[in-house]
């Protein structure tokens, strides 16, 4: 089991926020993320820790690994970390627009596009997962 330092947690918060909502994280959310990791005692195995570091170094891959883990190991520590960041972002008024329902002209097309993207990410992630 590894313990992570504040700098590492900040790095995670920045990367996960960019991944989740394509925005820069604010200071309050970084602080909340850091506290939540400690309060909820999220620990990673050595293997997971290596995987997380790889994801942080290659941010484009986060969505793929996240998608693969959602199918293969939804309770993994990495998924829990991203989930915590998601909950924190949703509780911040600066990011409310990414979570509150918005009127949309072509929701079906939007859903189809998102579905294809999600499937692609998951499949790619499943292929990559054994190597990372």
């Amino acid at each position, binding site marked *: 089991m590894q313990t992570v330092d504040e700098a590492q947690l900040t790095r995670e918060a920045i990367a996960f926020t960019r*991944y*989740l*909502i394509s925005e820069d994280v604010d200071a*309050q959310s970084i602080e*909340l993320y850091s*506290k*939540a990791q400690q*309060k*909820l005692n999220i620990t990673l195995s050595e293997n997971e820790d290596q995987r997380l570091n790889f994801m942080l170094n290659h941010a484009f891959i986060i*969505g*793929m690994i*996240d*998608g693969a883990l*959602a*199918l293969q190991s*939804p*309770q993994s520590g990495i*998924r*829990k970390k*991203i*989930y*915590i960041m*998601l*909950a*924190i972002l*949703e*509780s*911040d*008024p600066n990011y*409310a627009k*990414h*979570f*509150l*329902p*918005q*009127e*949309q*002209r*072509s*929701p*079906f097309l*939007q*859903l189809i596009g*998102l*579905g294809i*993207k*999600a499937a692609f*990410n*998951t499949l790619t*992630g499943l292929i990559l997962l054994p190597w990372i």
Partner: protein
Amino acid sequence: MDLAQEHDYIVVGSGCTGAMAAQTLLEKGVKVLMLDVGENDSKYNNLIPQKSFNSIRENDTEQYKYWLGEDYEGISLGKTVTGAQLTPARKYVIKNTEKLLPLISETFFPMESLSYGGLGNAWGLNCAVFSKNELKAAGLPADKMNEAYGVICNRIGISGEKDDATPYTSGELKGIQKAVEIDSNSKNIYEKYKQTKSSLNAKGFYMGKPALALLTEKKDGRNAIDYNEMDFYADNGAAYRPSITVTQLKKQPNFQYLSNALVLSYSNSSHSVIVSYLDTIANEKKTIRCKKLILCSGTLGTARIVLRSSTNETKRLPLLCNPYKYFAQIQPSRLGKTNNAPRMAFAQLALFYDAQKNNMDVGAASIYSYNSLMLFRTIKEVPLNFREGRKIMQTLLPAVSVMGVHHPDNGSGSKYLELVKDNNSITGDKLKAEYALNENALKQIYKREKEYAATMRKLGCYMLKKIDPGYGSSIHYAGCLPFNKEEKEHHLSPNGRVCNTKNVFVADGSGFTYLPAKGITLSIMANAHLTALNALNN
């Protein structure tokens, strides 16, 4: 408070039944002492602004405090289990239950409460009058219960509408306020029901607005619903909570309230009852004496007290609980549109399935719009990466509703409670629960749920996922001390007295011999009123 004196009446618990029993006793002029643990929310209530959900979401920089919780208890990382739906502001409802009400089970996952107002603090407010057939099956007197329903309705305030669901909701109740207004999602479903109702009624499905213990007009100093949609987080007085009644009773000279008192057991002496309780602050066992004791601890709590007090070696009690599932469903025709006001978090519509058309063994479903729960709570259930999952759920949410389906329950030997010794527990024991359904019951549940899904498809709603939170999740428990005309141990006489005792009564659902799916709360309150009257006349 002079605890050495003998009290007239002791009521155990401040939940829905305790509040009603105590009020009835006080109205008849006797003195009442209420024993309660009385856990309360000291963290969140004052933090939540009296504003609409959307306004808070867009503006309040402190909102994380009550969405996520001080200890991040609002972020549920595990599987969806009983109580997972409680927001941090409502978590006090289950505070200290693991420590003071230990329970083990592989099959049954109930929610209990030691809070001021009990499980009533998390009540969904659905009110249902049991039919004659259901009352008979439950062992309750139809004529007296109908009168008692009226008394309770007048006390708590119920809103509803005369529609197809009325025989299953408010029945013949008089004095109900106009129904709450429903949002555009639910209006759409209801309009489709009206267009197809003849074929649906032929199959036994009836839809309408639920009767809710929710004010749409001011009553007794309480506010009407504000449609702020913050109902999962805070109360503005429109929703009935037993704490409203108990707080009013505290102003009366004949009423005393003792908190931090967990009642453990009782024993009979010739003309009185000695009640043993744990002072949860001092961690000391104490006793108190009364003429009559009325247990309103909820079925599981009452089972513990009665089993501890019993000298009989047979320590297995029956158990009733409504099996419960919920369906996340989508109305494709609502995609891309926002769900317009008026909005509230309680049930918008009720759908009953009366296959035999005799108001017996009826399936009961409540339909909720899922607007005021945070998106992250739903995304967890989606097997996709969180980025696309968020975008998909954001698009779907305005068209999503949640239907909770309850099934009726009959007694059987495979559902029971036992008290087992446990030296590590503060009470020296823990409750063991087993709940298993036979093949026939499981088939009926499966068939009923299939019919529900098919009916909702006709109403333009398609199931995304069926979630099974496990047995016990309905939070409707009953039947551990079935009513019996014979004087048999571990039963209640028809007037609610514990058999083989003179002055111990049970006013919660422990005596019910059948549990309709409609929702038990109004009926246990009516029964509590009757039991209190019976205790006075005994």
